């Protein structure tokens, strides 16, 4: 693209907020009752963060990987691509993150687990719990319909935020954070251009998670470690 510096964010926005939320609404209707499965997946991940045992965490990482793969295909490729020509690239990034999460579940290593600071755990829980509650409230405040609710495991934003929470709790290395954080920036910019009130939320959550991770222990806790951090 020549004269790239003359382009603004709005030049890349190719749909209206009306089209965006109607797409989510029709997608929600089409994939129902997958929301129930996603709810179970969410409970598994939440449970793993609350009780950090190796097998639970491995299962949680695999559940997250499956969810990222599902969102890549069912949402990005099959739906979002209808109105956004960049969606196939987003789908590819989500598929890569799914693979990374599989690797996170089984990667070799012998790092000893460090005790999980309370703040990290709370941040992880808060960031994970947020999309299940607060994002829906924000949507309602904007006058959106419940049919347009963005649900973990179904659409990207709450899935990504939940993943950030899990990564924070697991103190995962930077490579696992790259795609989720980039998505928060891309999606936040999109929502900002769509003039959605809670557009600031995703980038702020991503920043919060990154800061919490940086301020926390620099020792990565490996999912394959054998010790129980609470023992």
């Amino acid at each position, binding site marked *: 693209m020549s004269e790239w510096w003359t382009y603004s964010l*709005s030049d890349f926005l*190719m*749909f*209206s907020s*009306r*089209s965006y939320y*109607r797409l989510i609404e029709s997608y929600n209707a089409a994939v129902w009752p997958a929301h129930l499965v996603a709810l179970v997946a969410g409970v598994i991940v939440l449970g793993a963060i609350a009780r950090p045992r190796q097998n639970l965490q491995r299962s949680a990482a695999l559940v997250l990987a499956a969810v990222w793969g599902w969102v890549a295909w069912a949402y990005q490729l099959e739906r979002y691509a209808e*109105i956004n020509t960049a969606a196939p690239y987003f789908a590819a990034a989500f598929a890569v993150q799914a693979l990374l999460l599989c690797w996170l579940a089984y990667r070799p290593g012998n790092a000893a687990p460090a005790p999980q600071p309370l703040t990290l755990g709370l941040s992880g829980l808060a960031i994970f719990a947020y999309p299940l509650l607060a994002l829906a409230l924000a949507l309602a405040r904007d006058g959106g319909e419940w049919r347009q609710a963005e649900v973990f495991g179904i659409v990207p934003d709450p899935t990504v935020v939940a993943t950030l929470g899990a990564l924070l709790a697991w103190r995962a290395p930077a490579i696992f954070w790259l795609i989720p954080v980039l998505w928060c920036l891309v999606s936040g910019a999109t929502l900002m251009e769509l003039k959605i009130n809670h557009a600031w939320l995703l980038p702020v959550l991503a920043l919060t998670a990154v800061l919490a991770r940086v301020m926390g222990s620099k020792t990565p806790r490996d999912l394959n470690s054998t010790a129980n951090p609470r023992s």
Partner: protein
Amino acid sequence: MPPTSPSRRHLLASMIAASGGLALSPLLAAAPPAPLLTRPIPSTGEQLPVVGLGSWITFNLGRDPQGRREATDVMRQFFAGGGRLVDSSPMYGSAQDVIGEAVQALKPARLFSADKVWVSGGARGVAQVEASRKLWRVPRFDLLQVHNLLSWEEHLPILLAMKREGRLRYVGITTSEGRRHAEIEKIMASQPIDFVQISYNALDREVEQRILPLARERKIGVIVNRPFRQGDLTQALAGKPLPGWAADIGCTTWAQALLKFIVSHPAVTCAIPATSSVAHVRENLLAGTGRMPDEALRKRIAQDVERLA
């Protein structure tokens, strides 16, 4: 200077003289009370209504059935009001298919289909044009434009050959928001194109300096995109009272005044506001009727918009 003519006939005669060809289509003249003004395409003299319909963002609706029904309603109203030129691009997501669905349903007799080629490489351009044509459900395009000058050196010869073979009626190039104007001028001066599409409105008037005069000199039609700065201009003026001159040219809204400012420029063939609202398409079409501002009033409109927006 306020508009001077109380008579529509006299007004139109004055505008023909002033604008170098603005004319009232005989067919539309028989449809009172608000005939949509037309302008001749410089290269052929074919008359084209001064208000067209864009599709950027507004018609990118995916599979949404309700949105598609509304888009068909917008196009129904557009054609019923005398509109002809509908503009789209492969870059606009599902807009081409949405237009095609409406074309299939409405079968408009006087559609002027304007699309674009937007891909690197000439051979890929041919395939893209054919894919676009199928989405539009038309036998051929009236106008194909090289979108944002992408690979124009490869696309233009192919489009001109298609025109010679009768597979296309007009060829053009596009840019938006003031980009690559030097290259646009170079192509306008050297290539046998029929249309140039540019951004122009009461605030963004750079094209008045060189491109619009060059278009008149080279007999190139001008299509104006982003007449409202993608809604930002109408939003900035919302709630601000219309100045007294608005009533003199029959404007009841800022959108109409902004459009009249554009289509009253003698080099402009057609403006293409995009909308997903039937009410807005009616309002836009009204801007192509009745009295137009003269040069003095155009300056005043620009000054007022600059002051208020």
